[in-house]
């Protein structure tokens, strides 16, 4: 159990190679999950019984099953169905399908946290219902959802490690490859953990910046 500095540097190189792939998975996963949450929350909160029921059922299914099993389902399933998806696409799809569900719930929580009186006041002042929502409720809701979105984003970044199991060559995959070949496993997983810590810390700080920028100046 010894730490070798030269080896540490080579490890940084190898895992750094995987870093690009991790970012290439994480960025679209974050953005597409946030986008996919929008139609979901619209269906969830719509007055129509069927759309809200379907959205509710969808969210219960994706939230109550592991994303790893969803990945296997899509990855191995698509191959068997005759249109094999690459690991990258299958992994990204599973991440977005699940996290879109979580994020729809975050959006719903944010919208519902704005007092009903705000809507009543808007309507009383003669705003149309659409304008009341867009100009009065939504801007306040956006501010409320930033912290939970930040938490969910960190979980998404961490979950990108799962695509290593369907052979996408991101950081965890590269680290494992090295660990299979060499004996210096401490250095490898130490460096890998640092890379993830750095990624999630940078992401949290960025979200914090957004939060501060959106804060109402008193």
């Amino acid at each position, binding site marked *: *159990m010894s730490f070798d500095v030269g080896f540490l540097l080579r490890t940084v190189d190898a895992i750094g190679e995987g870093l690009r792939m991790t970012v290439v998975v994480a960025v679209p996963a974050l953005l597409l999950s946030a986008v996919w949450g929008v139609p979901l929350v619209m269906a969830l909160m719509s007055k129509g019984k069927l759309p809200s029921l379907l959205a509710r059922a969808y969210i*219960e*299914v994706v*939230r*109550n*099953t*592991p*994303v*790893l*099993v*969803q990945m*296997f*389902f899509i990855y*191995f*399933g698509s*191959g*068997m*169905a005759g249109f094999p998806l690459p690991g990258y696409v299958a992994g990204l799809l599973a991440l977005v399908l699940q996290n879109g569900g979580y994020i729809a719930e975050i959006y719903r929580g944010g919208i519902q946290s704005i007092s009903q009186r705000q809507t009543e006041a808007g309507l009383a002042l003669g705003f149309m219902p659409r304008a009341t929502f867009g100009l009065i409720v939504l801007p306040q809701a956006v501010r409320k959802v930033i912290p939970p979105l930040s938490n969910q984003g*960190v979980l998404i970044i*961490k*979950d990108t*490690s*799962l695509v*290593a*199991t369907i052979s996408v060559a991101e950081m*965890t995959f590269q*680290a*494992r490859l090295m*660990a299979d070949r060499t*004996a210096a*496993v*401490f250095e*490898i*997983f130490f460096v*890998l*953990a640092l890379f*993830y*810590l750095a*990624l*999630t*810390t940078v992401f949290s700080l960025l979200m914090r910046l957004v939060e501060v920028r959106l804060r109402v100046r008193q």
Partner: protein
Amino acid sequence: MNSLLASWPLLIKGIGMTVFLAAVATVLATALGLVLAGIQLFAWRPLRWLVELYLYVIRGVPLLVMLFAMYYALPYAGIQIDPITGGIAVIGTYFGAFMTEVFRGAVLSVPKGQWEAGRAIGMRTPGILRDVVIAQALRVAGPPYINTLIMVVKATSLVSVIGLADITFVGRQIVERTLEPFIVFGFVALVYFVICYALSRLGRRIEARTSYVH
């Protein structure tokens, strides 16, 4: 369908392993969470920093990476533990951090005035903590605690990657033989769904029972 029927003993074993891992890891995570939340709220400052560091690391490092680190590194360190114990230890440690946040948040949600009121009527600190603060904090902790339980159940699926024969691992084995991924992984997903959905219904019942109108 036949592939599922033919392998039912394996599937039952896999489900048993998943439930066992989730249950023991939950107990471990809960105990850890209680101790660490206690430290964070009341202990000597440097100790609190240590807990803070632990929470920061767990928040930023994927569970899969921790599992791999345990799986690859422990044998090199000369530590021989069986993978089941190792898996439980890692999952318990990981979710111990989540539980710490749940319990700390619950205690902090009790207004300061409750402490002052307790003191004003002559109660001592342990008494206030037990009869006033924790009594009210438990109410708040219920729903996030159940949410964390659901996360634990789902997270146990990761042990399949380091070779523990849980339901996900068994599913992969059956798929390799039968080439029926939709049916097999559909069934595996259903197993998790039944467990997690039952837990979330329980959570909603607890929430309805314990919340009161102010």
